[in-house]
Structure formats: structure tokens, C-alpha cells
């Protein structure tokens, strides 16, 4: 089955500069094309999930976005400036995946130290409160759990009151509770209107916390739309039945049924992707000679696998129908 439609990139609205403007980004490591032509326009205030499997090029893109890596080709602009200037002015900050903390410092010292690098910051107490680490200020970083360390990185990122906050797989390695606490803190912050871009390979996170999902695979954007749009892509069910001798006209009849997204014939079986599986099943059983009808739900997972091109599992599932 094919599932290749790509949602249109929302056209930038308004006249102000984009919060994030990536154009034609390319980056290779040896023969591996980590990022193979990424364009991304994010308006101020958007919360964007950068979703893709491991190795899709998310971290490399973020490194270029933050000026930690130099693109082979393409440009990066944050509010109309290059990344180095955006960082120097505290307009962008980031929560990276791991590392980046001095183990011998306390949580409070880490925040105070980072604050000293800026000319002006939000108060240390405020960012610690907002990140949910106000009660562990005297704890040594080495003794903090993964979740606490990540909330500490979040507090550091809040210090310059950035316009753009970038998070690279922020909940990797956290337990369920740590993950929930982290997202609660981030969600509260997002409500204040900051532009947020977070990379994740967890579909639920992208679905639950982003206004917009950008699906990346093999260094390219393969789908880009609101969470609802992407969910819609995946929300249908698959109706499959044995129906020998289905001709083009019969297939067109199926396509014309309400809610049908796609019809595919495989041998003597027909596969119908639809929002209204009951209607399709009723039609198949009453108006055709179909037998052996099966209805399967398609999850976000399937859409994800199909869209990111890692569809082996999807095909296997279909093959066994």
C-alpha cells in the first residue's frame, strides 16, 4: 500500500520575520547524507514537533539550527539573524539530549553560573520554580535523576527568556513520571507564547504537545501539518475483503463511498482505507460478492512508519491479512 501524500507546508502568515527559517539545509558525514534538503518555516509562537525515527537527521538539523554545526549547503535564520548572533543575544536557547552539565556543581550553582554568562536574565529563583527544580537547589548534579537533570537544562534554557526554545529529544531515558513532569513544565511555558521546536521519536509526545508536526525521514521532511491533520492521515481504518474480479468501475464505486481515502487491489483481495469502515463493510457485504471481510484500525504508528519510509512492518501486517 502506498501512503505518500505530504501535507502542504503552511504558508507563513503575517509579515514579521520567521522565528525559524531553514532553507535547503544539507549536511553529510562522509557518504552518509544526514540532512538532505530540509526547508522549515516556523512562525513566532508555534510549538513544533520535529518527529522522526532515530537517524532521521533531527539532531544534525538542530545542531545546524543552533550553530553547533555548519551546513554543507543552505541557510539558517532565527528571527532574521544567524545562529551565533541569536545565541549571543539569548534569543534562542536549547535543551540538549544529554551531557552538558558539570557533575560536581549543585543545581543552584549551575543555574547561577549560567546566568553569569548573560548580561541580563530572568531571576534564578523564577526559572528554577518554572522548571520544577526549586526544591533541589542544593543537590549535586551527579546525584540528580535523569529527569531532574533535564529539568535543570530546561531551567538554564529559560534564563535568557529566549524567543525560540529548541529541545532535542528532551525526555530520552526518563521514566514515565519524569517525562510527565517535564512536559507539564514545558507545556506551562509554551502557554506563554514562546516559539518551541522539539525533536522526538515518540509519536504520543508530538501528538500531545505540538501544534504542528514535521515528520522527517532520511534527512528530508516527509509530512508537515497540524497535529490534527497528521492524526487524520492516520485515523482511518483498513477494510480488507476477498473480492474476485473487481474491475476499475467496481473500484471507482468503492472510491466514491463516503470517507474512503484509498482503494488498492491485491490479487483477489481489495484493501480500502477509510474513515467509515462500517459503511464500506456494509457496501461490500450487501452490494458485492465480497467475503472474508476484515477491519483493522490504523494507528499513528502505522502512519508514522508509512510516512517515514520505514514501512516494512506495515507491509508485513498487510501481507498477513
Amino acid at each position, binding site marked *: 500500500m502506498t501512503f505518500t501524500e505530504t501535507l502542504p507546508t503552511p504558508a507563513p502568515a503575517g509579515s514579521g520575520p520567521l522565528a525559524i527559517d531553514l532553507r535547503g539545509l544539507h549536511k553529510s558525514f562522509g557518504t552518509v547524507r544526514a540532512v538532505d534538503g530540509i526547508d522549515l518555516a516556523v512562525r*513566532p*509562537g508555534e510549538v513544533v514537533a520535529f518527529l522522526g525515527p532515530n537517524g532521521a537527521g533531527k539532531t544534525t538539523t538542530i545542531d545546524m539550527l*543552533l*550553530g*553547533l*554545526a*555548519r551546513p554543507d549547503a543552505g541557510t539558517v535564520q532565527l528571527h532574521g539573524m544567524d545562529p551565533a548572533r541569536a*545565541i*549571543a*543575544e*539569548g*534569543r534562542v*536557547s*536549547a535543551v*540538549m539530549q*544529554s*551531557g*552538558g*552539565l*558539570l*557533575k*560536581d*556543581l549543585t543545581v543552584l*550553582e549551575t543555574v*547561577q*553560573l*549560567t*546566568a*553569569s*554568562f*548573560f*548580561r*541580563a*536574565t*530572568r*531571576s534564578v529563583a523564577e526559572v528554577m520554580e518554572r522548571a520544577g527544580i526549586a526544591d533541589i537547589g542544593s543537590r549535586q548534579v551527579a546525584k540528580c535523576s535523569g529527569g531532574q537533570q533535564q529539568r535543570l537544562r530546561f531551567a*538554564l534554557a529559560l534564563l*535568557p*527568556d529566549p*524567543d525560540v526554545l529548541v529541545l532535542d529529544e528532551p525526555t530520552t531515558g526518563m521514566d514515565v513520571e519524569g517525562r510527565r513532569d517535564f512536559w507539564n513544565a514545558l507545556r506551562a511555558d509554551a502557554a*506563554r*507564547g*514562546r516559539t518551541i521546536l522539539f525533536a522526538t521519536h515518540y509519536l504520543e509526545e508530538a501528538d500531545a504537545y505540538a501544534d504542528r508536526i514535521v515528520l522527517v525521514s532520511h534527512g528530508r521532511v516527509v509530512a508537515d501539518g497540524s497535529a490534527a491533520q497528521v492524526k487524520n492521515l492516520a485515523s482511518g481504518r483498513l477494510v480488507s475483503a476477498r473480492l474476485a474480479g473487481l474491475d476499475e468501475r467496481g473500484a471507482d464505486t468503492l472510491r466514491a463511498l463516503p470517507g474512503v481515502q484509498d482503494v488498492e487491489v491485491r490479487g483477489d483481495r481489495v484493501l480500502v482505507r477509510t474513515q467509515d469502515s462500517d459503511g464500506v463493510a456494509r457496501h461490500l457485504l450487501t452490494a458485492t460478492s465480497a467475503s472474508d471481510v476484515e477491519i483493522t484500525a490504523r494507528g499513528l504508528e502505522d502512519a508514522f512508519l508509512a510516512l517515514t519510509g520505514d514501512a516494512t512492518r506495515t507491509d508485513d501486517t498487510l501481507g498477513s491479512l
Partner: protein
Amino acid sequence: MSTVSTSARTSAPVASDASRAPRTGLVNLPFLAIELRRLLRNRRTMIFTLIMPPAFFLIFGTAQEYKTTSVGHANVTAWIMVSMALYGAMLATTGGGASVSVERAQGWTRQLRLTPLRPATYVTTKVVVAMVLGLVSTLVVTAVGLVSGADGEAGRIALSVALAWAGSAVFAAFGLFMGYLLPAENVMQILGPVLALMAFAGGLFVPLGDGLFADIAKVVPTYGLAEIVRAPLTGDGVSVWAIVNVLGWAAVFVSGAAWRFKRDTARV
């Protein structure tokens, strides 16, 4: 540190453009203060730089005959004291510089690149902290020495100690160079023995005599400094070779550190 006092936030940035301008200046006092506090908490560093050198001095430098034998303007005990002060300062400054290695291994230097902190400020702070530790180490050895029989012309001893401290700056550069070069999480485990070897080979622990070792010593990084530091006590002049030795190694270490530092902060 000033703070932005606006409490509620809308989609517009809160901070004014003026407060967004990156800090200037090479030294940032809170950064320096926290770095010094980290140093005090590091038990291993404390033992190696503040306890070992005076202990060595007490073991090697306080024999009765040393106290009564003069090297010119001070006794042998004082001569060994300033040698150990130099050794302590070397350990301290090398360790201070090499601490960048640990911070690179922990990803801290990468994290710093996401802040406006200028790399030059980072390195300057590291060197200042290294020199402060070197000063403390030098002073501890001197204090222990003076109450344990080191004696001589006060001005000359003070000059020797000051030279030991100032000269150890060469080793701050050495530490930085090695810290950027070596990927080890604890680079001092390698550099500690290396420094001890240099101290021996350069004649810091035992006199060199006139044989093959004396010739080898002339190219060892500690050789020139040892001669310069001891010169005020002996009253001997400083040989051209000692000065060439110090300047040559200083050039090697500083340019090596600068080279690796540039590589480390370059975008890839």
C-alpha cells in the same frame, strides 16, 4: 547580576535590546568565584597540589646538614624549598589548565557554546584559577619551609618564590594544551607522572651533576625554570640556555593550546 523584572510574558520578547547585548570583558566574577569554589571541593586536587609538595619538601629538604650548608645567599633547605614551590605550582597550574579535558568529556564546553560566554573568557578564567591555585601551593610550601629551617636573605627568597609562581604560567599553558589534546576523563592521572618525570629529568628534585643526564636535562621543560628560580639564592647568573628553554617551551605550549582551542570551538 541584573534581572529583568517584567513578570508576565506575551509573545513579544521581554528583555530589551540593550540587555540582550552579549557581555564584554574577559573576566566574569561569578564565574571565577564558582570555579574557585569547585577547586576547593576537589579533594584530589587539594592533596596533589597543597599536601604533596610540602610533604616532599619535608622529606627531602630538612636534613640537618642542609640547614647549615649555604648555596650562596640561602641554605640548601631554602634551595629545596623553592624547587618544591615550583613543583607545586607546576602541578597546580597544569591541573587547572587540564581541567578543560574533564569539562569537554562531560559535554560542558558544548553546553557553553549555547550561551553568550566567549571562549576567550572561558580560557582566561581557567588560567586565572590555575594561577590562583599555583599561588596557594607556592605559599603553602614556602610557609612550611620557613618554619622548618629554610633560611637566607629574605628578599632573595621572596624573589625566588615569586619567580616560581610566575614561571608556572608556562605549565598552565601546558595543562590547557594537554586538556584540549587528550580525551581522557581524568587527564591528570597521565599528567601527574609526566610532571614528576619532568621534575626529575629537569633537575628539580635532585642535582644533575655533569653527565649525560645533565645534557638531556637542558631540553626538559622544567630545566630553565628550575635554574631561574634558584638563581637569586645561589647568586649565579641565569644562562642563556635556561631562558631559551623557558621561552621555547612557553611558545610550544601556548601555540599548541591556541591551536587545539581553535579546533575545539570551530563549527564542524
